[in-house]
C-alpha cells in the first residue's frame, strides 16, 4: 500500500512532526519540504526514522544549539561524510540488535540528507563507499545546484549559464560551461540500489519514491530538485512552480533506476522549450544577455532532448532486467 493522504493527515492531527517548525531556513526554501515530506512518509509507514545530515543549510539552520527542529534522532558530523556517518550508525543498529542490546523493537530506518555540494562533489566518495557496502539507508539529496549555504559558489550540479560566484558570467564566459554531473546514473550504476529523481513540484511522486527507497533492502538514493530561492533569484513562493517547469522542459525528468531497471515516473503530455525554464530563473539573467546565449540554449535543448530519448529507450530495454 503506497502512503496516502489519510495516513499523512493522521500524523498531522496527532501533531507528531518529525521535523518541526521553528527552524531558521529562508522563507520559500525548498529544503525543509524535502526533509518534512521524507520523514513524515517514514513515520506514516510505521518506521522510526533516524536522520543524518551533511553540513549545509538544512543542518546549520535546524540545529542551532541549544535548539533543534528535529523531533527524531539526528546526527550531523561534517560536510563530506554523512553517508559514512549513517553507515556507522546503521552498523551499530545491526550489531546492537544482534546482541540484544537495543532498547526498542520498533523498526528503525536510516535517512541521510545532503545538499548537492556534499553529494556530487566532496561527499561522493563516502556515498559511493556506503552504497557499495550495501548499508540499509536512504540518501536524499536536496539539489539546489550550488554551494548556497556559503553564498552561491559553483558545484558539480550547477547548470551551464548559471551565475555562480566562483564561475561567474563575464565578458568572455557564460558562467559555468559544463552540464550537471549525472548523479543518479552514477549511484544507479552501483547496481544493488534504488536510485531516483524527484521534484518539489510533485510531492506524491517523491513520497512514493521515499517509500520504495525505505522498503528496498539496501541503499537507496533520491535526488530532489529543490531550489534555493535566494540564489536562484526567484520569488519566495515560486520554488515548486519552477521545478514543475523543470520537469515539463525535460530539464529534470522524473524517473527511477531500481537495481538497473529504468522507469520514467512522469511523462508530460506537452513539453515546453528549455528556454522557458531558463527565463523563469534569475540566476540565468546575465547569461540571457550574453552574446553566446543562443548557442548555449540550442546546446541545452539538444542535450535534454537526447537524454529524454535515451531514457525512453533505457526504460524499454531494461524492463524486468533486475541486475541483482
Amino acid at each position: 500500500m503506497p502512503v496516502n493522504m489519510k495516513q499523512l493527515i493522521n500524523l498531522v492531527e496527532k501533531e507528531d512532526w518529525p521535523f518541526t517548525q521553528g527552524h531558521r531556513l529562508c522563507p520559500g526554501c525548498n529544503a525543509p519540504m524535502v526533509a518534512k515530506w521524507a520523514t513524515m512518509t517514514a513515520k506514516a509507514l510505521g518506521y522510526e526514522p533516524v536522520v543524518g545530515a551533511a553540513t549545509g543549510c538544512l543542518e546549520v539552520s535546524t540545529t542551532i544549539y541549544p535548539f533543534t527542529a528535529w523531533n527524531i534522532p539526528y546526527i550531523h558530523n561534517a560536510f563530506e561524510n554523512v553517508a559514512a556517518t549513517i553507515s556507522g550508525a546503521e552498523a551499530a543498529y545491526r550489531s546492537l540488535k544482534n546482541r540484544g542490546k537495543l532498547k526498542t523493537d520498533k523498526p528503525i530506518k536510516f535517512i541521510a540528507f545532503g545538499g548537492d555540494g556534499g553529494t556530487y562533489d566532496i561527499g561522493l566518495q563516502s556515498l559511493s563507499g556506503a552504497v557499495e557496502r550495501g548499508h540499509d539507508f536512504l540518501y536524499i539529496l536536496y539539489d539546489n545546484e550550488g554551494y548556497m549555504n556559503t553564498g552561491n559558489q559553483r558545484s558539480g550540479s550547477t547548470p551551464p549559464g548559471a551565475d555562480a560566484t566562483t564561475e561567474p558570467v563575464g565578458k568572455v564566459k557564460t558562467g559555468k560551461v559544463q552540464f550537471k554531473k549525472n548523479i543518479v546514473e552514477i549511484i544507479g550504476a552501483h547496481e544493488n540500489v534504488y536510485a531516483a529523481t524527484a521534484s518539489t513540484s510533485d510531492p506524491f511522486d517523491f513520497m512514493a519514491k521515499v517509500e520504495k527507497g525505505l522498503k528496498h533492502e539496501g541503499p537507496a538514493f533520491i535526488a530532489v530538485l529543490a531550489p534555493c530561492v535566494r540564489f536562484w533569484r526567484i520569488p519566495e513562493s515560486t520554488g515548486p512552480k519552477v521545478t514543475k517547469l523543470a520537469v515539463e522542459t525535460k530539464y529534470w525528468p522524473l524517473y527511477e533506476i531500481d537495481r538497473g531497471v529504468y522507469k520514467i515516473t512522469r511523462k508530460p503530455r506537452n513539453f515546453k522549450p528549455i528556454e522557458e525554464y531558463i527565463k523563469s530563473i534569475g540566476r540565468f539573467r546575465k547569461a540571457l544577455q550574453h552574446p553566446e546565449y543562443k548557442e548555449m540554449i540550442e546546446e541545452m535543448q539538444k542535450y535534454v532532448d537526447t537524454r529524454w530519448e535515451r531514457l525512453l529507450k533505457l526504460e524499454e530495454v531494461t524492463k524486468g532486467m533486475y541486475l541483482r
Partner: protein
Amino acid sequence: MPTKLAITGAAAVAHAMRQINPDVVAAYPITPQTPIVEYFAQFVADGVVDTVMVPVESEHSAMSAVVGSAAAGARTMTATAANGLALMFEIVYIAASMRLPIVMPIVNRALSGPINIHGDHSDAYAVRDSGWIQLFSENSQEAYDMTIIATKLAEREEVLTPAMVNLDGFITSHGVEGVEILDDEVVREFVGQWEPKYPLLDIDNPITHGPLDLFDYYFEHHRQQQEGLKNAYKALPEVFAEYEKISGRKYDFLDLYRMEDAEYVMVVMNSAASTAKYVVDELREKGIKAGLVKPWVFTPFPKKEILEALDGRKAVMVLDRAMSFGKEAPLYSLVKSALYEAKERPMMGTYVYGLGGRDVTPTMLHVPFEDAIKGELDPNEERYLGLKE
C-alpha cells in the same frame, strides 16, 4: 590462567580487541597498521567475535563511521597510522567534541612527505591538540595492556573522551615477542558493558547530535572537553590500579627507570626506551648515575609528575622521534615547560632521533649522556642522533 604467546604487537592489539569484543569496528588498512585490521577481520570471519565490521573505503570514512556508530550507542573501535590518521584528522577533532569514547590504536609512522612507511611519532604529535587521550607503549605487552586500559578509561562518565593507543610502526607492530594474554572473561569483566547515556538509537528520547554551535556555546563546550581531560588525569591512577589487580602489571603516568638517585636523565617515548634502558644499565655499571623517564601518558600531559621526577637532577635530555619545524620538538617543549617551576632547574638538551624508521642504537643513545656529563648541553640547540651530515 593468563597465557603467554609469541606474537607481534599487531596481533597483541588484535587479541585485546577480540577480548573487548566491540560492537562495531570500522577500519581501513594502512601500513603498518594493516595487520591489526587483518587479524581482527579473521576473528570476525571465524566467528570468534560477533562484532559488526565495516571495511570502509578510506580512513576519513572510517573515522566518520566510527563517530556514527559510537553516537548510536555502540562500543566502537578503529585503528590507523600516519597518513591514514592525517586523512581522518578533521573527524578526529569532531569525535572528541562529541565526547565519544572511541578507542583507536595508532601504529606510529612517519607522516609523508617524502613518503616513508616506517616508524616515527610525527602522526601522534600531529593530533596532539585534537582532544584525544594519548597513551604510549614501549612494546607489544604494553600495547595490549594499554588497549584494554584505554577502553575502561575512555568510557568513564566523567571522562567520555576518545583514546589513542600508540605503538611503534614495524618495531612493535611487526616484531615478535612474548606477550601475556589475560583470560577472556577477566578482560570482559574489567571493561564491562558500555552503557551510553544519550544514544542516537534511543528513539523514545530523541537527541540531536553534532549541532551547530555558535559563539554563544562553542567556548563552553570546549571548556567541558578540557574538563574531560582533567578528569582523565584524575581517573588514570585508579584505572591503572584496577588493571594491576587483574594483570599484576603496574602502570603510571611515567615509567621511571633507575631514577632514585639519577643525575643524568633521558626522556623518551615508546620502543626506543628499551634501548635507552640498556644504555642506562651500561652507564650505571660504570658508576654514572643515569636514569630514564618514559611517559606512558602523553595527553593529558603529566606535567606535575614530570616536574617531580626531574626537579633537581643535573641534566635532562629529551629525545623526540619527530620534528616541529621552526619550533622546539614537541616532547622537549612540553618537558621544558613543565620544568619552569623547578626549584633546581636541570641543564637541558633536545635531541631528534630515528625519523622515518632510522635504527636507534645504544651507541647513538650514549651521545646525549656524554654531552651531559661533559657539561655540553645547550637548551636551545636541536641536535640530531645518527644524522648523516
